[in-house]
């Protein structure tokens, strides 16, 4: 039992899941990746801000509990299912085409590189209404413009329930910028993903 109204679940509609978060999102993501259905069939792409002194070992730390391999893509690497991609430290991660990633070292956006806005905006351009975006706990407004673009192109926006967030600036900004399709606690978001 997943507790969702079947009608609310857009099975087979999405082609990609993009996730953004900063302060407070690491344990949430880690837990989601632990509980994810190992047969999950959409590529998952994440932009998580990291502290300057915690650049190394981030991927490894996420991978410990994850049911899927966690990969920091190189430029033009394939976007494929069965993997969780995370933006490498100090690079913007972009969706270049439906098949391939791009990277950039252009200026910080919202004090951040990687920036969630950059990932989501490029994802909206390429995947349009096939994109499912998720904004988690965070301490700045990165991601708000991104979800607005996702919405504008017909994509889906989920935001972590503020009650559960250790930092609410980011999810709040996202809620204000785009009327999210769903606001849910992280384990409910996960259930939703597992039903897709």
């Amino acid at each position, binding site marked *: 039992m997943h507790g969702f109204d079947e009608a609310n679940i857009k099975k087979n509609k999405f082609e990609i899941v993009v996730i953004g978060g900063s302060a407070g999102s690491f344990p949430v993501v880690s837990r989601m990746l632990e509980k994810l259905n190992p047969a999950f069939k959409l590529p998952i792409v994440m932009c998580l801000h990291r502290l300057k002194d915690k650049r190394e070992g981030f991927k490894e730390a996420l991978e410990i509990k994850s049911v899927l391999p966690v990969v920091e*893509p*190189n*430029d*033009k*690497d394939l976007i494929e299912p069965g993997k969780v991609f995370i933006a*490498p430290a100090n*690079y*913007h991660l*972009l*969706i*270049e085409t439906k098949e*391939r990633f*791009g*990277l*950039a*070292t*252009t*200026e*910080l*956006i*919202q*004090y951040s590189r990687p*920036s969630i*806005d*950059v990932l989501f*905006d*490029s994802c909206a*351009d*390429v995947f349009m209404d096939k994109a499912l975006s998720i904004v988690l706990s965070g301490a700045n*407004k990165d991601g*708000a*413009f*991104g979800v607005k673009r996702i919405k504008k192109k017909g994509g889906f926006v989920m935001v972590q329930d503020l009650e559960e967030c250790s930092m609410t600036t980011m999810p709040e900004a996202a809620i204000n*910028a785009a009327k999210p399709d769903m606001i849910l606690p992280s384990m409910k978001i996960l259930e939703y993903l597992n039903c897709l």
Partner: protein
Amino acid sequence: MFPSYNDFETEIEPEELRKLTDAVLTKYGYDFGNYAQSSFKRRVIVVLRKHGIKSMDVLIQKIIHDPIFFEQFIHDITVNTTEMFRDPTFFKALKTLVFPVLNTRSEFNIWHSACSTGEEVVSLAILLKEENLLHRAKVYATDINHSVLKKAESGRFPLRNLDLYTQNYNNTDPKGKLSDYYKIVDNEIVFHRELIEHVRFKHHDLAVDHQFFKFDLILCRNVMIYFNQKLQNRVFELLHASLFLNGFLALGAKESLIWCKIADKFESVSDHEKIYKKVKL
């Protein structure tokens, strides 16, 4: 201030980008048509906002009628971020994997093929000097952007980056101290002339220009991420043609040649540091 995405509501459609790149190509011979679309679009948005330009047509008119504005446009469109000893482990790998091979030659040629403001050039020169190889090196440093080339020729870098550069240098397993190689003058780090006096700085556009020399080592780092695959393939052909057999090619930390058409003509020397060797003609 950092540009904030929330500020730009500027929307650009692919056809408009095409109009822009066509106009630039026709008027000035620069071809941005095969830059990676996702990041190129964002560069154009930055330019529009910087000058308060509201539409693509206005931008195109300004570019066509104002060559000085166009130079500025090139400067803003190209991403010039660089630092000394960027990825110190890469420079360490050059020393252990590539220098011994160079050392077997009485003379060798090096090309920094998107050198930006020259930090990479001075970094390598310092390491070559420490291994007593510098006087044997013939070095070319090229870029598409005239203004960064001018800076590179000066051998001067902003003082604010000194701590980072010193730290990076110290992580390359160096023989000396970075301070052996520079003076501080007027808030700038001024490197000793001998490190770059032998370097030929030259305008070269990877998107349209051709081979001009043959090299033992080519550094082409952190520029191809801004190109789409079609242009990347062109550049790999050009770099391949510009290398002697068994010559080395170094890419940026997040770049790789596995997706290029002529990948089989190279062999990996260090997967992690993105150093390759031309093994087939």
